[in-house]
């Protein structure tokens, strides 16, 4: 696999025109004083190497070029407090951007979804980075063929629930979300990971509320998609919502198909007093559930409520009552093109 990745990296470099690729140095002693200075002069294929600065960079940047690598030189390179375009500390508008060795802290915006990184183009890769006390750690827009890959990173004290909740990591319609060997904790209200990707892979992560964590779900797939969770350590804390399961997968009307649900080698602990559900499966797809270690006061797997949820959804869709539901019903019915036969068939399949 490593060889494949290396080959892909070489291909990516060739595609970017490596002859012109440069390394831009950012730091208090460099010509480029702040990441945003580099963002203004970067070009496709460049590497941006950022020196540490005392107290962090009070800066934000919009990266508009492709195949960039943006990395901290050593640990402790912090970008903090400031958001661009009312969105994030770093807004990545280019494809195939790699971010490494950086800490993103304290993003706040009027919309209350200020992110460490807002990915607005396909294929973001984040390695060895930290997201601390942002309204959202990473927020990725839809990119149907794109991926977000997060490796060896930390998400601490992110999220909020002032009006709508925001999670520590959220991706919208992607082909793939892959999170590996990363740590999530201290959530401030939303989920840790919320994914609308066609496929979500979580491997070897630690997702633990701890004493201060105030999460909704640890992992939520609100609109279908495949989920593979392997070798993760998960714990809901005493302040976390007991009504919500640790992992929630919902495939309502019109959701993309759930091709795979695999839970293998995970360890789940409930640190709260009330009994809770580990995996709530509202998809109709049978999960593969092997070798998981489940602690006390935990229902490992539940589909309770799924039939009622789908019945309600169909009634809403058919009757179309409630102003707010009309749009939802139309959206939900779109894949069936309104044919009664298709509806009946779908209804039959889930009930």
């Amino acid at each position: 696999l490593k060889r494949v990745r290396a080959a892909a990296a070489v291909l990516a470099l060739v595609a970017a025109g490596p002859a012109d690729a440069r390394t831009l140095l950012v730091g208090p002693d460099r010509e480029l004083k702040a990441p945003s200075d580099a963002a203004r002069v970067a070009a496709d294929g460049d590497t941006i190497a950022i020196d540490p600065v005392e107290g962090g960079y009070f800066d934000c940047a919009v990266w508009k070029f492709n195949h960039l690598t943006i990395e901290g030189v050593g640990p402790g390179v912090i970008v903090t407090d400031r958001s661009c375009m009312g969105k994030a500390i770093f807004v990545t508008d280019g494809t195939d951007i790699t971010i490494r060795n950086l800490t993103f802290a304290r993003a706040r915006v009027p919309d209350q979804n200020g992110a460490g990184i807002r990915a607005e183009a396909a294929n973001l890769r984040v390695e060895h980075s930290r997201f601390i006390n942002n309204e959202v750690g990473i927020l990725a827009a839809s990119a149907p063929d794109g991926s977000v890959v997060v490796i060896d990173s930390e998400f601490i004290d992110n999220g909020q629930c002032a009006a709508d909740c925001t999670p520590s990591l959220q991706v919208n319609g992607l082909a793939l979300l892959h999170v590996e060997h990363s740590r999530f904790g201290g959530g401030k209200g939303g989920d840790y990971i919320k994914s609308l990707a066609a496929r979500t892979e979580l491997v070897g992560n630690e997702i633990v509320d701890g004493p201060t964590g105030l999460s909704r779900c640890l992992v939520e797939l609100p609109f279908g998609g495949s989920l593979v969770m392997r070798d993760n350590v998960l714990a809901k804390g005493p302040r976390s919502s007991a009504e919500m399961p640790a992992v929630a997968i919902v495939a309502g009307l019109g959701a993309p198909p759930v091709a795979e649900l695999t839970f293998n080698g995970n360890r789940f602990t409930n640190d709260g007093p009330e009994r809770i559900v580990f995996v709530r499966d509202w998809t109709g797809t049978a999960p593969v559930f092997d070798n998981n270690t489940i602690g006390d006061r935990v229902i490992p797997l539940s589909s309770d409520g799924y039939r009622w949820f789908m019945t309600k959804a169909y009634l809403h869709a058919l009757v179309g009552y409630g102003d707010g539901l009309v749009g939802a019903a139309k959206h939900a019915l779109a894949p069936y093109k309104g044919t009664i036969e298709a509806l009946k068939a779908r209804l039959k399949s889930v009930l």
Partner: protein
Amino acid sequence: MTHRSPTMRRALRCARDPLALVVALLLGGAASLAPAAAKTLVVGDAQELKTPSAAAAVVADGDTVEIEPHEGGYFDCAIWKANHITIEGKGADVVITDKSCAGKALFVIDGSDVTIRNLTFQRARVPDKNGAGIRAEGGNLLIEKSKFIDNENGILSADAPKASITIRDSEFTRNGKCDPGCSHGIYIGRYALLDVEHCVFRETRQGHHIKSRALRTVLVGNDIADGDKGTASYLVDLPNGGALVMRDNVMEKGPNSENHSAAVTIGEEGVDQPTPEITIEHNKFTNDMPFPTVFIRNGTATEAKLTGNTLGGGGKITPLTGDGSTN
């Protein structure tokens, strides 16, 4: 550059008295001996120096400039380049009015460690529409018992990241303008500290009563009110973050405020400096607008701590939006 306390300056002024000289030595050490020739310049109709600008032309480091009242006020402006000087009105009604220097202000302060006392600055207008009573361009500045009336900016500063501006017992009335850029009651740039205590702000026009980009802003015991005629935007605006301590202030947004959204905002233009604390204690805020408003709108990730504040008036008030807690 040494900073000299008022006590020190008095001692130096009386330096012909051997005892005072000893005191001066004890207080400030040998370095303070340099301006031993510090003198008091007197400005007035009956004096050799007829106007503040005449004094500014001859003042030296460490001097005191005393300005006597003048019928109708001094139609004058001055650029003060010396350091460690005190410029003060003799009595209660010494007015500088109408004329601006360098297209900037009635008084442009280029020196460091300058004290202004007992003066009234009024009617500053310049083509850039940011004519100030005082334009601070040097280092530390102390303003006491002064009035700023009907200027485009009451006080406007440049940046001096290591310096402080302290304003006490002063009044700001009918300052401010937005045409199209905004001017304010007080508008301070990148200073280490802005400290405003026991001052009164009234009828600020369109701009904010206090706008500060200082690293730390301390507001204690002030009375900051739009009144019936004021059209101000915010009462206090820290557009780039920075520490904020507000204690024992009485504040009001009036019916003609041109910005209903908030009384105090932090981080509106993007936070680009540390915000170690936001402490809001024992203030009284009244919303006299027929609109809802927010008392503290915190755009930083620093938790605002609101304690013992009294909120009232006809309009609804949300005590805090953004990070923080209310007790």
